[in-house]
């Protein structure tokens, strides 16, 4: 079996793909997996769905969500500055003073989110994050018409940041929290010989997960692929293992393996499937950890309760600083997530 492809995760994470504008990211994924699948298509919501057909009736569906934190342009001032509104659950303090890309996924332009110098801030401004109303993108075009030649109102934007390797097997980039699951899933697809497989598989790369809308695009994917025996959700979970948080309050710890959640904020996972996964992991000596605070809650809820419902489990990679320009992940946890996910394609 091939080991986790960090180069591909790098490529995916650097690509432009804020909530609602995921086509560039999905294009890379489609190119990569197409030849290993029997069918790859986009559904009406924009989800990328790939299928490997089996001979038996047993179908396992894998899901991961690919959109990253970002913003969209809501107005352009006369002097060419772009006013923005945050997409999903981002935060303005993560954006102030950052380099960003703005565009539509086919062509993007560089800008910076303006931050006033610290010595010219009032006491209040020093201690409070800038509100989204006051944030703007500086592109140095000087004129509204010039900015409008690049993009219009409704253009998307996200961070611009480098991928780097850090000490202690850590990697850092924007969007790692949104793409680590997709990298796992692509590696998983490699491992299946479509000519020989008995079981059938679906792989759903879903969009607009950070919009916060219930019964969102992931629910549509679940409905579109129809009845499955099991859904395996691959994603990331923010750790609170930072200065001061210990024990239960840490939620999970980077470097100790992927997280198998019994429940999170929106989903109680299938107790039988979770138990079976933990037992298999222990037998195969794959490091894993548990969600100590039953925290988080992503697209699993929409999948578990989309249509007639499906038994659902979730494998998550712990991440530090999610939704920022500097998301950090420990490589050990990516490898653990891939090994755990592979337990579902090893046919007995």
């Amino acid at each position: 079996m091939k080991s986790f492809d960090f180069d591909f995760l790098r490529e995916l994470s650097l690509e432009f793909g804020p909530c609602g504008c995921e086509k560039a990211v999905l294009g890379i994924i489609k190119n990569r997996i197409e030849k290993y699948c029997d069918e790859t298509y986009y559904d009406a919501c924009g989800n990328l769905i790939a299928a490997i057909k089996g001979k038996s009736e047993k179908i396992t569906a894998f899901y991961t969500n690919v959109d990253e934190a970002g913003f969209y342009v809501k107005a352009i001032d006369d002097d060419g500055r772009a006013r923005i509104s945050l997409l999903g659950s981002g935060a303005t303090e993560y954006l102030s003073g950052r380099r960003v890309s703005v565009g539509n996924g086919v062509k993007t332009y560089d800008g910076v989110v303006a931050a006033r110098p610290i010595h010219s801030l009032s006491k209040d401004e020093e201690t409070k994050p800038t509100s989204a109303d006051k944030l703007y993108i500086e592109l140095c075009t000087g004129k509204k018409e010039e900015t409008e030649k690049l993009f219009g109102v409704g253009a998307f934007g996200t961070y611009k940041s480098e991928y780097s390797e850090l000490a202690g097997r850590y990697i850092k980039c924007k969007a790692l929290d949104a793409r680590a699951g997709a990298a796992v899933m692509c590696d998983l697809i490699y491992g299946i010989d479509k000519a020989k497989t008995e079981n059938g598989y679906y792989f759903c790369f879903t969009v607009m997960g950070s919009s916060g809308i219930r019964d969102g695009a992931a629910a549509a994917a679940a409905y579109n692929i129809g009845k499955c025996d099991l859904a395996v959700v691959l994603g990331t979970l923010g750790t609170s293992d930072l200065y001061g948080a210990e024990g239960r309050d840490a939620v999970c710890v980077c470097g100790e393996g992927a997280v198998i959640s019994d429940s999170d904020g929106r989903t109680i996972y299938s107790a039988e499937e979770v138990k079976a996964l933990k037992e298999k992991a222990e037998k195969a000596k794959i490091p894993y950890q548990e969600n100590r605070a039953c925290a988080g809650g992503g697209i699993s809820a929409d999948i578990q309760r989309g249509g007639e419902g499906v038994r659902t489990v979730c494998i998550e990679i712990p991440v530090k600083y999610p939704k920022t320009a500097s998301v950090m992940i420990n490589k050990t946890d990516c490898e653990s997530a891939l090994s755990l996910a592979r337990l579902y394609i090893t046919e007995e």
Partner: protein
Amino acid sequence: MLDTLKKFVYAAGVSGDEGDIASVIKKQIEPYVDEVYTDAMGNLIAHKKGIPGAKKLMFASHMDEIGFMVSYIDDKGYLRVSKIGGINWTASSYSKVEFKNGTKGVLIPEARTDPKDFRPEVFYVDIGAKDKKEAQKHVRIGDFCRVSPSLDRLCGKRVAGRPIDNRIGCYILAETAAAMKECVNDTYFVFTVQEEVGVRGAKTSSFSIKPDYAFATDIGGSGDIINCAPFEVVLGKGIAIKIKDGMVICHHTAVELLSDLAKKEKIPVQYEILESGGTDTCMLQQAAGGCIAGALSIPTRFGHSAVETIDMGDVEGGIRLFASLCAYKLD
């Protein structure tokens, strides 16, 4: 009469772990229906076929109860738990809790915590283990526990205990199936999962059944307790026909249908208008293409505590009303 209800109350079934209560209900209802099956979410569905061309009638009662899930075991052997459903921490503090494997414990707030500051993070479960290692022999992360069940007779027809929410609804459906003389409609009795965490099981089960008419039954409130907000429904004056709650406005056809049948059968009823909160009814109404949905609420004092109190007279009326609905040909 209380024997069946007692069986339902004592069977474990915290949201997400409803296996035990499902098997107890299955055994009870099986003789009265054509098939009983469980779906992917764990909903227990009992189906009694109707006459050819009959409309689909779905009854729903959630079988899950509020409780706790172990999320972390500390070095001293104390368990941190995540709440499952709407926990009243004041009502739950210093209670005995139990696990399905027989392990018992007590739910305690951290010392010197002002009751005003009660929140999930300050509570822990002491199972008497001397350290983490011993605790791990008895419980694992992800295990469910609940405040110990009980059911006691009070004066007259009143009973108190837990989880009356919503084993009393399950009891009404099981007794309706037994009391049903004719089944003209294509009838489904659905015992739903995960209602207490956000009406989750009702969503998938009603999607697959696609009923024409759907009726839930669940506990309601009672406007006769000291210092409560004004509320029409009281204990002992009959089952309550839901007009609205925080998550649904019932279809007028459903309300009229139940009212007319009650009048015909001389069953005392009250009408429930709940400002906040909701039941499976809201999901039934929006199932697949939508349906005509209504509900019967059992007047209940002290919901989500270990001393939920009801009047069995109200419950008997509910069973008769649902049984008469089974015999009424819907179109």
